[in-house]
């Protein structure tokens, strides 16, 4: 399954990169979500996969018995998901705000900071 997921992550990365190079800001945002998903999965897969054994200590024991899932990447991914949400929300609101000020979502026309005539 690690290998299958590696292929899947490759597809996610390719799709997100393609979307992020688009002209429209919404496509960029879709790409951003796919990219954070790909990153989360990458961390998860790099910690190896263990089916059907969550990282829980059974009642009455000091440590889990046998092979349980790797808890460390899970903890990393969990916070990464929440932070990723914060990043996405900020980017989305920035797009809304930019559209309100500039009247366009085409990044080629968003040149307030670096106007064409000065370049």
């Amino acid at each position, binding site marked *: 399954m690690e290998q299958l997921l590696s292929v899947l992550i490759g597809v996610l990365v390719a799709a997100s990169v393609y979307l992020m190079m688009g002209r429209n800001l919404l496509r960029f945002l879709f790409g951003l979500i796919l990219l954070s998903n790909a990153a989360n999965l990458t961390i998860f897969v790099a910690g190896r996969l263990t089916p059907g054994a*969550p990282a*829980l200590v059974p009642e009455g024991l000091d440590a889990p018995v046998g092979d349980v899932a790797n808890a460390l990447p899970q903890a990393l991914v*969990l*916070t990464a998901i*929440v932070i990723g*949400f*914060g990043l996405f*929300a900020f980017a989305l*609101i920035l797009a*809304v705000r930019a559209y309100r000020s500039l009247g366009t979502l085409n990044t080629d026309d968003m040149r307030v900071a670096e106007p064409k005539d000065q370049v």
Partner: protein
Amino acid sequence: MNSVILIAGARLQVVLLLVFSAYMLLRGHNAPGGGFIGGLIAATGFVVYAIACGTKDARAALRFDPANIAAVGLGVALLAGIVAILWGDALFTGQWLFIGETETDKGLPLSTILVFDIGVYLVVLGAVLSIVFALEETS
């Protein structure tokens, strides 16, 4: 949206989700759950309420400004980390109190860890809601 069924359902559902989120928060140390998940569940409840009844009612139901909730949460989490100094430990070292402890049973555990997780819960709830409300309220 002015669906009576949705509004009635949303009211009930907020209560249920709040209780559920508290349950997820408190059991988080020993079973799947915790501050992040609890906060997100509670936030989802209010988001649905806001979609059904409008953000004005949702804010009223929440009673506190979500930004304040998040700020208080951040302060609570920070305090939970700082109090470790009183016991001479490094910052963010967990401090435990077991009520009714016996040889075989740890009794009711209270800890700065739980306080910290409550802080996380409040920050996630407050931050998500202030984002969603702000977006819903812009023309």
